């Protein structure tokens, strides 16, 4: 009897509802049978959970949540609990907590998960008055082609008080998935979505757009890591 696996979205704060809706569409369209869960308690970080999205919201709010009842250490434990490890995807605030190095933390610092060999600057793209939309370039065929309804080489990037990936540590196997062109003060083009092993992160909000390809890419990644006998 096959055990149905779960994909979760951390539901502490932020735009988790949009992620769940996007995942629901993808799971239905790809005819998969994952359960989708809102994660608010460390008891949900078990072996049935094969993927987790850490959504956009405020990373300082997430910081408080992480400090409650050792949630952060239980999360880190869960992230290495299986081989292959579960897939974790961070958007915006999620990118910040997954980054090995973070600039412009609040006074007193913030708790981090780390694991992604990048340096990320909080609120790099400024306050709300500098938030913007811009078409992004998708760098991999896997992303362009992963969903039946959309094949464009571009992706709608929506940046809300977004963090900026300032540097990527070379030789750490970090793959750039999407780039932004022509932003003053940043290299042209500049990485806005990355993947490293079982981790994924982006500084923009795919869940606010109608393009489901990042969600499809994530779900396929979760599926691959859940197949029995996979090394």
């Amino acid at each position, binding site marked *: 009897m096959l055990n149905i696996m779960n994909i979760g979205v951390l539901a502490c704060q932020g735009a988790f509802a949009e992620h769940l809706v996007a995942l629901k569409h993808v799971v239905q369209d790809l005819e998969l049978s994952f359960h989708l869960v809102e994660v608010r308690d460390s008891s949900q970080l078990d072996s049935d959970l094969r993927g987790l999205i850490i959504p956009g919201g405020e990373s*300082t709010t997430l910081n*408080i949540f992480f400090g409650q009842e050792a949630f952060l250490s239980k999360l880190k434990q869960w992230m290495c609990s299986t081989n292959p490890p579960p897939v974790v995807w961070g958007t915006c605030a999620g990118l910040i907590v997954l980054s090995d190095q973070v600039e412009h*933390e609040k006074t007193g610092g913030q708790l981090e998960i780390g694991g992604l060999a990048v340096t990320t600057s909080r609120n790099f793209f400024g306050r709300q008055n500098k*938030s913007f*939309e811009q078409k992004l370039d998708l760098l991999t065929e896997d992303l362009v082609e992963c969903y039946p309804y959309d094949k464009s080489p571009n992706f709608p990037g929506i940046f809300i008080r977004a963090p900026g990936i300032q540097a990527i540590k070379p030789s750490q196997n970090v793959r750039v998935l999407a780039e932004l062109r022509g932003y003053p003060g940043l290299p042209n083009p500049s990485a806005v979505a990355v993947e490293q092993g079982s981790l994924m992160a982006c500084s923009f909000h795919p869940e606010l*757009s109608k393009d489901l390809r990042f969600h499809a890419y994530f779900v396929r990644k979760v599926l691959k890591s859940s197949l029995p006998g996979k090394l």
Partner: protein
Amino acid sequence: MGPVSGTEMSTDKDGHRIEGSFVVKSGLAQMSKGGLIMDVVNAEQAKIAEEAGACAVMALERVPADIRRDGGVSRMSDPKLIKEIMAAVTIPVFAKVRIGHFAEAQILEALGVDMIDESEVLTPADDEHHVDKRAFKVPFVCGARNLGEALRRIAEGAAMIRTKGEAGTGNVVNAVHHARTINREIRLAQSMDDSELFSYAKQIQVPVDLLREAAKIGRLPVVNFAAGGLATPADVSLLMQLGVDGVFVGSGIFKSNCPKKRAHAMVQSVTHYKNKEKLAELSEDLGEPMVGINCDQLAEKWEGRESEMK
């Protein structure tokens, strides 16, 4: 609850950057969901709010309870105060303008605040018209008592709605009434067929396409928070269970006798609003809540402040 919007991007054809589109404006509101936005009157309070996990702060010179107590005309805060608060924290900063005062809004936009609250808590500056919020790059949040008022503000360009409640009273009854009214009126719209919505739209004085949209998605087309009189973790849970996306807390925190503890508890209550055991723990030993005022003893009810041509 479905998404507020999975939207078509509004880029120009050359793929250049677009700022201040409705997608971008409503994006900030969406990132605030599941969070608590706290009124703060100085940098020190702003830091307490950030430390407690607030997802944004509302900068103002006096909390609503004090505006009520002092009387007189209340206006937009001094930019010096707003700038101090913006410099003190790394989370978004909201600030209030008087109803219809588009010049105060232009000033706040120039200061770079993240969102403007066109607020009935301040003394209205225009008795007939609200600000045309579409003209601004900065997003606005507005108060509403019912579906009609909410959709009228959205038609003017509001990117976020909150219940008006009765601010500064510590009494949640009005916020609950407003939240329930919006829910009931949306359900009523959903029970109607297309031909009936025209008359309902006329009755509640809103554009029919916005009414149709709300009926289709079963909620307001923008993020909706509770505000006005929330003072305890239980109040937070009540409003979240009534379907709001998050909460504003004003006088309720800094007028209580242990603001840090209460702030922390109320922030966690938004996350754990469905968990009775957690809420019981969070409600324990919080000190004295703000005393509050009974709404039927109020000299002036602010919820009635809406500008319209007579």
